């Protein structure tokens, strides 16, 4: 866990720190955040940067309380958070629903992989937002084009991960199960699926992060609610405190989402790394 302390003094320091229980990292981290906030407040109060451009933490907190109580331009904060997270989860959910079975099918059957693999491989490196223009042309400015965009963002990632996961199952295991008399259905449900789920989950967490990035971009372009919209709208009125509130909330939601998936991961594929 810790790197090789070079000198004995450093070794003693590391030992002392580890004695302060496994939580020392959290304390140092919290201290660093507090220090940064204090420095930020200090720099602005001292007048080194205009508070108009860089609102101090106290102003940001004030704006947060204000939005929490009165909402932002006819939308409550809960509505905006709900809109952003809801869109991201809708696109991610659809991509998972269709992408995992499709990817697994591609992994099991080489012919399917050869027929459709090139489409997925072409779509995967394409920046999702470049589709948005086409999707708006096809589906209009409403919710449909955004959900479709997010589905397209996550789908190739989910498909490739699922395909690679199934492909990575050791052939020996399948042969062993088959020689012990397992039917193809049993081989799939007892060997292939459990062995590939950890990697499928890794793909899902990457897909969720990409979806969350894209939803904000889409809301900056075409939306009437959501945190991305709130940030853009605030920038038009030079409400930098509101922008900061939006950015911090988005960062925290992103952290919560990735932690949540990590938690699910440890619950669902608890056998990860122990196969």
């Amino acid at each position, binding site marked *: 866990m810790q790197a*090789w302390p*070079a000198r004995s003094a450093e070794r003693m320091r590391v030992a002392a720190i580890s004695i302060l229980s496994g939580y020392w990292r959290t304390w*140092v981290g919290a201290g660093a955040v507090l220090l940064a906030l204090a420095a930020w407040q200090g720099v602005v109060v001292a007048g080194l940067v205009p508070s108009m451009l860089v609102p101090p933490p106290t102003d940001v907190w004030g704006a947060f309380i204000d939005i929490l109580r009165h909402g932002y331009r006819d939308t409550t904060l809960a509505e905006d958070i709900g809109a952003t997270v809801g869109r991201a989860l809708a696109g991610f959910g659809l991509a998972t629903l269709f992408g995992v079975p499709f990817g697994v099918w591609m992994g099991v059957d080489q012919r399917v992989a*050869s027929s459709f*693999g090139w489409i997925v491989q072409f779509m995967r*490196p394409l920046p999702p937002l470049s589709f948005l223009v086409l999707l708006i*042309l096809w589906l209009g400015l409403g919710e449909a084009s955004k959900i479709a965009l997010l589905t397209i963002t996550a789908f190739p990632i989910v498909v490739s991960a699922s395909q690679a996961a199934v492909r990575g199952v050791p052939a020996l295991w399948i042969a062993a199960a088959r020689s012990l008399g397992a039917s193809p259905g049993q081989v799939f449900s007892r060997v292939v699926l459990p062995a590939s789920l950890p990697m499928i989950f890794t793909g899902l967490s990457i897909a969720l992060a990409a979806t*969350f*990035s894209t939803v904000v971009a889409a809301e900056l372009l075409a939306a009437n609610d959501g945190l*991305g919209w709130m940030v853009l709208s605030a920038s038009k009125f030079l409400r930098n405190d509101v922008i900061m509130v939006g950015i911090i909330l988005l960062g925290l939601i992103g952290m919560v989402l990735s932690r949540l998936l990590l938690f699910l991961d440890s619950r669902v594929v608890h056998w990860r790394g122990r196969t």
Partner: protein
Amino acid sequence: MKSRRLWLFTLTSVAFLLVVWTAVTAIGAVNPLFLPGPGLLASSFVDLTLHGYKGYSLPEHIGISLMRVALGFGTGTAVGTIIGLGMGMVPLLDAFVAPFVEFLRPLPQLAYLVLLIVWFGIGETSKIVLLFLTALPVAAIAARDGVRSVPRERVLAARALGATPMQIFIHVVFPSALPEIFIGARLAVGIVYATLIAAEIIAGSDGIGWLVFDAGRFLRSDYVFVGVLLIGLMGLGIDRALSALERRIVHWAGR
């Protein structure tokens, strides 16, 4: 024999899609506004190459975008790698910096673009800073994990042979971490590229992402299609270039 048969599946699938696309657009079953046919795309591509788009030639649009990627990715990866190496070697520094890196990494990049535009204006600076901030946490985490995964025996062996901490770093830790740093760099360049296209769409006046968006506003869907195809090819090119570089520099990876 078997691989040739699989190759045929790909060919059939590509051919099938091309035929359907050509047929559907040729008989006018769909409005060319929504789906331009292959012929229209080809002529639009020639048109774009010859006449450019709104004041810039096509290579200029592509060049502007690539230059932004190179600047933002280069600076962000360099600084991020240095920070990450430090984090990997000094646990205290890691604990100190980790909250910021972990906050920045899942944060949607476009969210802070708005703030950067307010601070730096709508020109180049805000875009380069955006890409810098995009690449930085990805590179930092890759470098940190690279240092952490250096086998302890290697470090101990070097020290037992009398290497100074600096020598250990230069000859043992850094080369061992380099493959992982490169994996991080490839990940970062993909994210930086996607972010740039988004940034050009939201707040650009040139570049290939802006071209697609602007063409969409004027309902030139043929240009949109050509642009999207070019964006895909450019992304593929960037990734290939970086992986060729990776094979040259860390030729020992995986061995």
